[in-house]
């Protein structure tokens, strides 16, 4: 199969399959999680319901006292690469075009050079967090195959996208096809791995904060 045929496949059949599996998995898991339900809490909330949930969204986004000093890389690099991913995924013209095609929504893009620079920073910080995961005994102990796979599934799209955009290593056509393929792998595995946190993070934080608030431990 030549590069052009490969590209057409990932833009057509491949995309079709991966978005299908992604939607299937996402709806499955979201329905499952949100339908778990709890018995109605008949007790009078110790603290105003809701406020604590909202508060926790922010509270858990900043490091607890003392933690920053113990593990600065986790916080700084963690923030940097997440923001980087957001910028690359949602503010690159080509990506917006895809989202527009699929959903009809569009918004202004950032210049390609800025996205390029962001990609470099993102890749560097992702390598840093990987190095730290391997080097710190506690983190290494806690890491499973899923953690490394999740890292790779996230890293590869950024790497191939950057290489394609800069015309490095392989011809643009082949690299673009690899980039799209890597994103399709990410889409397929996202609903079934820890990467699901992209969709459950805010809900679970709210839930925990809210429950704690009701029980009298507001944040």
């Amino acid at each position, binding site marked *: 199969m030549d590069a*052009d045929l490969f*590209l057409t496949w990932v*833009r057509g059949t491949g995309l079709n399959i991966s978005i299908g599996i992604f939607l299937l998995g996402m709806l*499955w898991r979201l329905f*499952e999680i949100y339908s778990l339900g709890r018995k109605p809490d008949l007790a009078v909330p110790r603290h105003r319901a809701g406020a604590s949930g909202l508060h926790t969204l922010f509270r858990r986004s900043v490091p607890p006292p003392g933690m920053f000093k113990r593990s600065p890389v986790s916080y700084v690099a963690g923030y940097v690469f997440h923001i980087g991913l957001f910028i690359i995924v949602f503010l690159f*013209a080509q990506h917006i*075009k895809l989202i527009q095609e699929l959903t009809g929504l569009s918004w202004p*893009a950032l210049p390609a050079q800025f996205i390029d620079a962001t990609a470099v920073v993102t890749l560097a910080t992702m390598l840093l967090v990987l190095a730290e995961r391997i080097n710190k005994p506690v983190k290494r102990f806690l890491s499973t195959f899923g953690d490394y796979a999740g890292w790779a599934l996230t890293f590869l799209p950024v790497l191939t996208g950057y290489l394609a955009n800069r015309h490095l290593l392989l011809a643009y*056509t082949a690299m673009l096809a690899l980039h799209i393929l890597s994103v399709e792998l990410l889409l397929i595995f996202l609903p079934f791995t820890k990467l699901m946190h992209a969709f459950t993070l805010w809900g679970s934080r709210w839930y925990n904060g809210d429950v704690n608030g009701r029980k009298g431990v507001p944040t």
Partner: protein
Amino acid sequence: MTDHETLNRETPALEIAGQKTLGDSLVQQGISRRGFLKFCTAMASLMALPPGTASAIAEALIKAKRPSVIWLSFQECTGCTESLTRSYSPTLENMIFNMISLDYHHTLQAASGYGAEKSREDAMKNFYGKYLLVVDGSIPTHDGGVYSTIAGRTNLDLLQDVAKGAAAIIAVGTCSSFGGIPNANPNPTGAVAVSDIIKDKPIVNISGCPPIPAVITGVLAHYLTFGALPELDDLGRPKSFYGQTIHDRCYRRPFYDQGKFAKTFDDEGARNGWCLFELGCKGPTTHNACATTKWNGGTSFPIESGHGCLGCSEPHFWDAGSFYSALSMPASPLKLTTGAAVVGAAAGVAVSIANRVKKNAAKSAHEKATIADLEK
């Protein structure tokens, strides 16, 4: 060969292929060395060689002998021949045609029927192992190749026969290079490229629908000058013309880098000449020389006229999704999404019902512990 008369008006006498050198015929035509040097400068430019090589080309060409060329047209639309014969600088093309002996081309030659076929057979016999074979059009292979025949012979048979004695094969156009439009899905005739059939000869692919005339003549000129085919890329195309993408050499590239895109064909961006990527331009994945060599006497190329590149010099360009959907967009409509969403939702609901059932079962199976139980 009567076709020469139409192509070589300025040439008083025609030599038989392989006899005189080009230098001899130049002297005969009264062309000065300075004039020839100028011609070679144009040739260097044509072949995309460094501009200082004109005198080296002149030295080589003076000693070159006119090769015999057999041109076979298979499953095609004659657009490639039109492109070449209607090219903008006929004098330059004429000079190159003067430098070859076109012994068979069934569209251009005046001879027909047995006479035409005989001239091909003569050339094949007299210059066995030395003639150049030019092919435009794809070769149908289904049902024994009956979907395209010339003088009662299938294209497949003719190609295999003529290719045997060829020094090299030049596949002109996307059809002969990669299968082209006849090869597009569902490919009813089983059309394939020359390189799918002939494996033991050097083949150069000059793809494009049609290819740029200057590229066709440029490759011929290269063969004449150096007696060999130019350096090829992994798809068998000459690197000097197909080495870079349209996007790499596009004058609108700075707008791409700045993120300035035309959103429709008549908006402000389109009027300002911004990048056509979002309107489906295939420039980033298309290797050809349009952006620099241009068309119609250097007038413009599609992007300069406000339309995105279709990618016609790439394999399977016809099946690569809409010409108007950007490369980052789906090549075909997503058919699985609704089904997958329904299945996913159904699975989610089913699992949640199962969970509820389990929970209720656990609840009903739950026995309240009493003090008496604990004291047991």
